[in-house]
């Protein structure tokens, strides 16, 4: 988990640098400060469990084991990117790893995660779904529709709310009448727990318990991780809405050194080993940037590929249940 958090941190520091050099265009939303949430939650479940996240999505992809080179190349918009340069920073995804993507429309993936959970229940498959979103999404109607259906149908989905105190530039007080997001889950009789999103073990324990609850057929669970993003909403954010002291206070809670100290204290790793991890990860990320930078752009002739599966062909669909990219894939 330490390595994963360092991976995300270093990946994003390099991404920010590439953005400043105009090698990464568009919008870039950094997860720095929140790494413990994605890493703790995803480490607490099985590899085959499904994950959906929002637009601040680099952390989920890396925590799910997606190749940092392919992720970086996607940010650079290259053919070797995770989505072949179609999506960019906010839309990383890889079906084979059961990482179903970052979604840029706030809250839109909440019912989609519930739907995947419906399919798991219907197919009697043991997987659960982790559906990540921020405090900002809880003011959106689709959040409530999704929770309502998940609770009604007892679906195996863990809703993970990353409460980082801001919905873009709006403070929690400006966007929500309640400060604790778990209160919103109570309306749907959904069991819930708050955890320390700056502590990877706290998140791990909360999600482990939540996933076990889902897997045993007891329905959805709501986890609220109290966290903080150290950077602005996006690279273009001057952060006029929060004061520097607050940022400094939260930075003192940085989840990476915190967990590093824990590992040393409990003799899980030595300081040397942790330093070694950082070095290895840094080399890996330098290689990811080099790979992305040297990768080819997508061929303009492919711009209209894969809008549909294939041209209309009645013969092809006339015979038996056809193959499609299913969860077994």
């Amino acid at each position: 988990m330490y390595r994963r958090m360092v991976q995300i941190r270093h990946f994003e520091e390099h991404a920010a640098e590439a953005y400043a050099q105009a090698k990464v265009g568009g919008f870039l939303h950094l997860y720095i400060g929140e790494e413990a949430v994605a890493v703790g939650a995803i480490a607490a479940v099985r590899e085959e469990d499904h994950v959906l996240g929002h637009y601040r999505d680099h952390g989920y992809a890396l925590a799910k084991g997606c190749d940092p080179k392919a992720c970086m190349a996607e940010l650079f918009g290259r053919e070797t990117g995770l989505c072949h340069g179609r999506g960019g920073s906010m839309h990383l995804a890889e079906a084979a790893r059961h990482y179903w993507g970052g979604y840029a429309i706030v809250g839109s993936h909440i019912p989609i995660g519930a739907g995947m959970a419906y399919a798991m229940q219907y197919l009697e498959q043991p997987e659960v779904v982790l559906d990540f979103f921020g405090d900002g999404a809880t003011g959106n109607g689709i959040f409530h529709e999704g929770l309502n259906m998940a609770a009604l149908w007892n679906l195996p989905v863990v809703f993970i709310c990353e409460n980082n105190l801001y919905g873009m530039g709006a403070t929690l007080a400006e966007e929500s009448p309640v400060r604790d997001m778990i209160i919103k889950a109570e309306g749907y009789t959904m069991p819930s727990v708050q955890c320390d999103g700056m502590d990877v073990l706290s998140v791990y324990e909360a999600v482990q318990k939540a996933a076990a609850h889902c897997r045993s057929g007891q329905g959805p669970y709501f986890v609220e991780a109290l966290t903080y993003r150290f950077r602005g909403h996006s690279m273009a954010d001057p952060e006029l809405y929060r004061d520097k002291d607050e940022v400094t206070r939260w930075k003192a809670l940085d989840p990476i050194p915190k967990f590093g100290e824990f590992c040393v204290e409990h003799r899980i790793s030595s300081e040397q080993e942790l330093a070694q991890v950082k070095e290895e990860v840094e080399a890996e990320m330098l290689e990811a940037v080099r790979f992305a930078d040297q990768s080819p752009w997508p061929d303009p002739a492919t711009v209209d590929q894969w809008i549909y599966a294939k041209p209309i062909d009645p013969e092809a669909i006339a015979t038996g249940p056809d193959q499609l990219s299913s969860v077994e894939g």
Partner: protein
Amino acid sequence: MAEITYVEAIRSAMEQEMRRDDRVLLMGEDVGPKGGVFGATAGLFAEFGEERVIDSPLAEAAIVGVAIGCALAGLRPVAEIQFLDFIPPAMDQIISEAAKIRYRSNNDWSCPLVIRAPCGGGVHVHGALYHSQSLEALFAHVPGLKVVIPSTPSDAKGLLLAAIRDPDPVCFFEHKALYRSLREEVPEEEYLVPIGKGRVAREGRDLTCITYGATVHEVLAAAERLAQDGIQVEVVDLRTVRPLDRELIVSSARKTGKVLVAHEANLAVGVGAEVAAIVAEECFQQLDGPVMRIGGPEIPAIPFAESLAEVYCLGPDKIEAKLRELAAY
């Protein structure tokens, strides 16, 4: 072959496909024991149970969102929106998510989803502002979606079977005036009508009227009147408004040299505009008159009072007058 109505044809398609493929699920408001507000799912709950015929909360966005999640996980969901007028809350799910899934992932995932909805109005068959609209152009504008609007019971069955087996999201709009007014012999066995292929509903040499949905029958009635005066109208039923059957549009337009496009929806920026543009681009040399259009007036929906609704609706008289205007060129 049994003679059945349009709504029975739709019901029969879903029943056959659910027997054939246990990945097919239905969800929507009152689709369960009640059998749907128009009876399209009558009896299916009794045969397939609550796991496969799912009564949902009154929440269109999440109905579609959950269906998308099921589709991503390998199922074949058919979501019913009780009236097409209720679909705007689900537009985000349909346009932002379903339509983009294959493209955003460069064919890594697919979204085999059908969204069924009753559309349209008429002097005696509509419920005014929010139970009468023809919104197909909103969806036909979106690459990644297919939009099907059958005009006969046999097409309804064959197209719905094709839609359920299609690997991409299909919007399937059913004119409620047709549900019980039409009855014809429909094969009991399964068969597919290809999506994207129109048909010639009546052959003619003098002018072409391109139309779809319930309007097909009004055009056929008008064409019959012109035939008594020796004017032969070719009636083209598009059946699918995205993708359009360009080949059929062009071949019929070239054959007759005169084209009228007719639909119930209002004209501005509508399906008729697209068809007219295709004719203008492809058949300029063969045209003997202006490409004409007839459709609903530029008002937001069908008003309730009969005197006002009559202004909105087309009917054979208005179509006949327009056809005679075109024939005079």
